[in-house]
């Protein structure tokens, strides 16, 4: 099973590279996505045992992330088919191939159960992502690509050092060295504590960079601001989820070694700091895509916070991971449509989006309320769980600070989004960027994502509840 699900998008990436027609090539994306989704559902229903000598396995955490990534990619793939039709002037060979490679490598990151392989796969997502940021081929997208590559590569390099430290934690104690997740867990109490702590700190910095936790988040506003909306959706919903998954696996190891309190503290502080940084920068943000990047920094902070507290808050964080991924999909895809229609993405030029683009504009507005954690959307439920967990564990001042910061973010988001969506379109804009209207392909995927976000707010399906409680149990030390 894992071989097919990883190889299928990679094979289609090769096909996309060889495909000669610029017009029909984007249809490989939905083909890859549907195959991936089918295999994901099969794998989620019947999780098999480890394969390839234990190097590949789908643990309960991975199952949740895989489902999210697959659904998100499917929506983005159909969107891409519509979007690239508007950009038919531009060669999409590299873009399509890299999107598919990105899916393949994300899937590998999720399945990998060996710290070395996880690292390689994560690095590969960085490299496959770079051409996605550079799609527009102008000076600002080049700058964004450069920062993305340099900052992510340095982060991932530190994660490699962390991986080495992890290996040395068993070498030091004379244990048989293995970077397999399960082997390390089995030996956890015997591992060398100082090396384990240092390893966790480095892994947190490294994968935290990919996740976009402050202060390692600085690539995010640029990359999300300049990349096409659909790349932003995949980064903020998929790649960051994978990075969080790796951090959770590291946390589980530290817990098993009896260092859970140390790891939790680090996550908690980093998380709270991220939310604070996001609040500071979202306040005066005029660029709607950069604003979404700061919103992503905020939600990554909330996830880290929830993981650091543990218990109910961790369950909330897992649900929030899904909610945030889907809601970010809604926001980035609709922001992409707005960008296309107005030829601009700052609030001095984008006004009256709801009137100009009834579907995308309204979905963008609804997505904002979802991502600001208001009822009746999914993120509200998961945030409530996280907050409940925080107060339950007695971290009253953390809960209070978080609520205050969320209020600030809400104000900042609201100001920008309302300015962009309300009112009449500015004069003369009609002629500046004509011809873009919502179409079935660029509208329906967003509608599907929005429907899922709403559904998760009203009722969490039974299978997802099972998946989440399995994942929590796994984090708490079960199998």
């Amino acid at each position, binding site marked *: 099973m894992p071989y097919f699900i990883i190889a299928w998008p990679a094979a289609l990436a090769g096909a996309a590279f060889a495909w000669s027609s610029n017009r029909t090539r984007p249809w490989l994306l939905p083909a890859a996505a549907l195959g991936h989704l089918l295999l994901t559902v099969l794998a989620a229903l019947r999780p098999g045992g480890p394969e390839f000598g234990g190097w590949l396995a789908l643990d309960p955490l991975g199952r949740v992330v895989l489902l999210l990534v697959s659904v998100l990619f499917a929506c983005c793939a159909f969107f891409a088919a519509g979007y690239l039709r508007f950009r038919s002037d531009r060669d999409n060979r590299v873009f399509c191939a890299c999107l598919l490679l990105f899916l393949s490598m994300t899937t590998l990151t999720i399945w990998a159960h060996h710290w070395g392989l996880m690292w*390689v796969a994560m690095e590969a997502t960085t490299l496959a992502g770079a051409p996605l940021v550079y799609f527009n081929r102008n000076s600002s997208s*080049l700058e964004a690509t450069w920062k993305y590559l340099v900052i992510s590569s340095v982060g991932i390099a530190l994660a*490699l050092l962390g991986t080495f430290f992890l*290996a040395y934690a068993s070498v030091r104690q004379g244990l048989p*060295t293995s*970077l397999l997740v399960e082997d390390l867990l089995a030996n956890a109490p015997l591992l060398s504590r100082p090396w384990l702590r240092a390893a966790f700190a480095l892994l947190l910095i490294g994968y935290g960079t990919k996740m976009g936790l402050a202060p390692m988040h600085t690539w995010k506003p640029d990359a999300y601001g300049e990349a096409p909306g659909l790349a932003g959706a995949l980064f903020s919903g998929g790649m960051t989820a994978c990075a969080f998954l790796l951090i959770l696996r590291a946390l589980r190891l530290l817990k098993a070694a009896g260092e859970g309190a140390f790891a939790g503290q680090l996550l908690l502080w980093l998380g709270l700091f991220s939310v604070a940084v996001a609040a500071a920068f979202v306040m005066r943000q005029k660029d709607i895509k950069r604003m979404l990047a700061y919103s992503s920094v905020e939600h990554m902070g909330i996830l880290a916070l929830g993981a650091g507290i543990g218990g109910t808050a961790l369950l909330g964080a897992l649900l929030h991971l899904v909610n945030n991924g889907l809601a970010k999909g809604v926001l980035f895809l609709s922001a992409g449509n707005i960008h296309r229609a107005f030829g601009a993405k700052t609030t001095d030029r984008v006004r009256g989006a709801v009137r100009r683009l009834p579907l995308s504009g309204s979905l963008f507005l609804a997505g904002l309320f979802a991502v600001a954690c208001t009822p009746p959307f999914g993120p509200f439920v998961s945030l409530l769980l996280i907050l409940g967990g925080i107060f339950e564990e007695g971290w009253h001042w953390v809960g209070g600070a978080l609520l205050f910061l969320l209020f600030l973010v809400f104000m900042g988001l609201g100001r920008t989004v309302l300015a962009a969506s309300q009112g009449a379109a500015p004069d003369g804009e009609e002629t500046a960027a004509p011809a873009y209207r919502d179409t079935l392909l660029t509208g329906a995927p967003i509608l599907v994502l929005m429907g899922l976000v709403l559904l998760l707010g009203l009722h969490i399906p039974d299978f997802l509840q099972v998946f989440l409680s399995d994942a929590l149990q796994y984090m708490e030390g079960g199998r």
Partner: protein
Amino acid sequence: MTTLLDGVFIALILLNFFILGKASLRGVIRVVCVQGTVLGLLPLLLGPHLDLRLVLVALGTVALKGVILPRMLVRALEELSIRREVEPYISFPASLVLGALGTGFAMFVSYRLPVTPGPGGDLLTSASISTVLTGFLVLTTRRKALTQVLGYLVLENGIFIFGLLLLEPLPFLVEVAVLLDLFVAIFTMGIVIHHINREFSTESTDRLTALKD
């Protein structure tokens, strides 16, 4: 044998200071090339017995870190019509002082982290962490995109030094993957530098400051 190894690690730490103090880009590339070559030879000194695997690792590392990557960088330097100085944001003495502080910090950290007595010992961890910090310093305080690639290389060198402790227990696959990923990363950065040069007809990342909040 141990004194020889200690000498090599001290030499590696000294090379870090050369990297921080050199003003000419070509000079820095040359020092990084020397550092890469020394790193490549280390597996032969550290291994308990010489076998084919160690020789292959050594050869691959010397070829990549000592020859191919520096060659690529020199070629980029010649193709791009850029000024040949490093152009740091902070003065060279300040870089050196920060480098010294970093080395001190590395020694403190490696004192706290227990290592198995044997080849390398404390100095290996110190050399590794201080090289990582040097790379980080070059990355953050130098202006040009090319020097940022150099900083990344130095940082990777530091990680490689630590990897020597795991040469025996870590499977070959990981070693290969590490080298491969390093190569791909540098290669991609090379392409981006090429585009930067065409787009801005300069290669200073100074020009890459349009995006900010």
